[in-house]
């Protein structure tokens, strides 16, 4: 288990070269084998098998309260796995947290927070360093930091409002800035907990598209907890469905079928294919039919689901 392949990706990133084709199969970025977790004496899930390669977009789906966020905590090393093996970047969870970007469950900044978006992004770079920079010293380092902030803000498309107080940005704008903050140290893995929560539909699909782009162009493996699969479905490489006790992982084509989802949710779920070839999940507890219909009508990239 070496991290060299991903090192290469990181150096490629400067040239903005698309690396989606060169995703190595060799060393998985994340691997779970028969993993289980217990919280307060209760087994939340068990038997989770998952392998995520460089530059893959994985969604963790399932009903509320089954332990999706707990999976993220296990990957961060904040909670131990009760059984099985969990490896992150070739080591124990938490051992390589410097190369893991983490976006906690939706936190929004109050309108009265008078700190610019770029400052929040910058804190992601060196906010955990003690002491203050000596004036006059380390000018090159400071310039490099400023350039990195500008670069990552540009990457998420937030240049237009990054210099405004973050409290005055909309929910979608704040989410983009927070993604920039999580990306600023060039992580190899980006863990996001419900990043689309409380965003409106256009913003949900815009953020999903941004994450897909980060994944496939920058070679960052994205693992995202979500409860509505539709906005992200056509960007996904891999899906983990967690339901009570059990879990199912695989490609969307394997997992997202009417039979599997109905069994996992214990309620009738239908997977429909639109005329554009895209999949739409209907009848999921958290995704009312109306919601799915609107999103299906809204989408434009019909070709994405060709591989499903």
């Amino acid at each position, binding site marked *: 288990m070496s991290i060299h392949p991903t090192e290469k990706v990181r150096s490629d990133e400067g040239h903005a070269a698309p690396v989606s084709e060169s995703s190595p199969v060799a060393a998985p970025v994340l691997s779970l084998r028969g993993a289980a977790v217990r919280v307060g004496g209760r087994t939340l899930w068990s038997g989770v098998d998952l392998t995520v390669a460089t530059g893959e977009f994985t969604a963790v789906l399932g009903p509320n309260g089954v332990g999706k966020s707990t999976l993220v905590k296990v990957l961060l090393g904040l909670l131990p796995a009760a059984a099985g093996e969990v490896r992150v970047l070739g080591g124990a969870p938490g051992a390589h947290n410097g190369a893991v970007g983490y976006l906690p469950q939706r936190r929004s900044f109050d309108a009265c927070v008078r700190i610019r978006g770029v400052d929040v992004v910058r*804190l992601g770079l060196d906010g955990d360093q003690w*002491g*203050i920079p000596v004036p006059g010293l380390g000018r090159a380092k400071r310039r490099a930091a400023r350039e990195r902030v500008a670069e990552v803000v540009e990457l998420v498309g937030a240049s237009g409002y990054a210099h405004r107080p973050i409290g005055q940005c909309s929910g979608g704008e704040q989410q983009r800035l927070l993604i920039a903050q999580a990306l600023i140290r060039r992580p190899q893995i980006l863990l996001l907990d419900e990043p689309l929560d409380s965003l409106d539909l256009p913003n949900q699909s815009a953020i999903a598209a941004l994450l897909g782009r980060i994944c496939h162009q920058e070679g960052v493996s994205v693992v995202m907890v979500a409860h509505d699969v539709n906005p992200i479905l056509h960007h996904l490489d891999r899906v983990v469905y967690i339901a009570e006790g059990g879990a199912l992982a695989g490609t969307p084509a394997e997992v997202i079928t009417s039979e599997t989802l109905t069994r996992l949710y214990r309620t009738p779920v239908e997977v429909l294919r639109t005329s554009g070839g895209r999949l739409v999940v209907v009848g999921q507890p958290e995704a009312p039919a109306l919601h799915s219909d609107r999103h299906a009508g809204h989408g434009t990239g019909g070709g994405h689901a060709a591989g499903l």
Partner: protein
Amino acid sequence: MQLASDAALPVFSWNLLNDFQDMWSYLSMVNAFRAGAIVSVVCAVVGWFMVLRRQTFAGHTLSVAAFPGASLATLAGFSLSLGYFGFCVAAALVVAALGRKGRESGAEESAVTGTVQAFALACGYLFISLYKGLLEGPTAMLFGDFLGITTGQVVILAVVGAAVFAVLAVIGRPLLFASVDPQVAAGRGVPVRLLSTLFLVLLGAATAEASQITGTLLVFALMVIPAATAQQLTARPALSLTLSVLLGLAACWAGLIAAYYQPYPLGFFVTAFAFAGYVLAHLPRLGREVLGRVRTPIATGGVA
């Protein structure tokens, strides 16, 4: 509280050089200006973080703890400085120890803070009533007094202020991170809880300093108003901090000058000058909002 009886009031000449020569010919005034400068700079910086962290209620409680501290010092006859700093820092530790449930539980924290505040005020009242000979004491403790400041007190203020700055210089950046974005900061290994406790102690030290100038009830004149004004004027952290210091210093010294030439209390002048700045800083925004309301139909049309 005022410098002299109204018959002998000095007259402001608009020749600032002469005025300062006049004022600084009294050692007590020199000490007042020195103490004011130290206190306003320390309070502006600590207050900036306090406003950002929205811990103004905690700040107020710690400043109220200065009241029993000062009255107990008077009653028991030990050093006033010890009373101020001891009680404020102790109150900070109590608030930190009782409210250690993380920042999400804002309601719980404010309940704890309120409890401590009520008890502190009650203790202050007890000490005052035990000390029968104290006549003007409570007013000076609650609303400030600047003529009694000794050179020794100034030295203590400077030493504590320097210590506060030294700690802030070390923890400043992680503290900013933990204040703006506690969850991600914790994920990055920033000790958010430790910083929170440490900051409360700094806050206690700063409020103890401010209490000695503006009195315990008016510490916000130096702790909140300059910082809130600066944060209204700019969202750049470094510029905002600098502005906060300058505004606090200006309000404090202008208040001292006014209180020297007018027979009215210092606390009022400092607060009034700071408040005027705050209102001025908000005028452009209020103006924009009024204009925006008039133009609303056009604006939304443009966005859509």
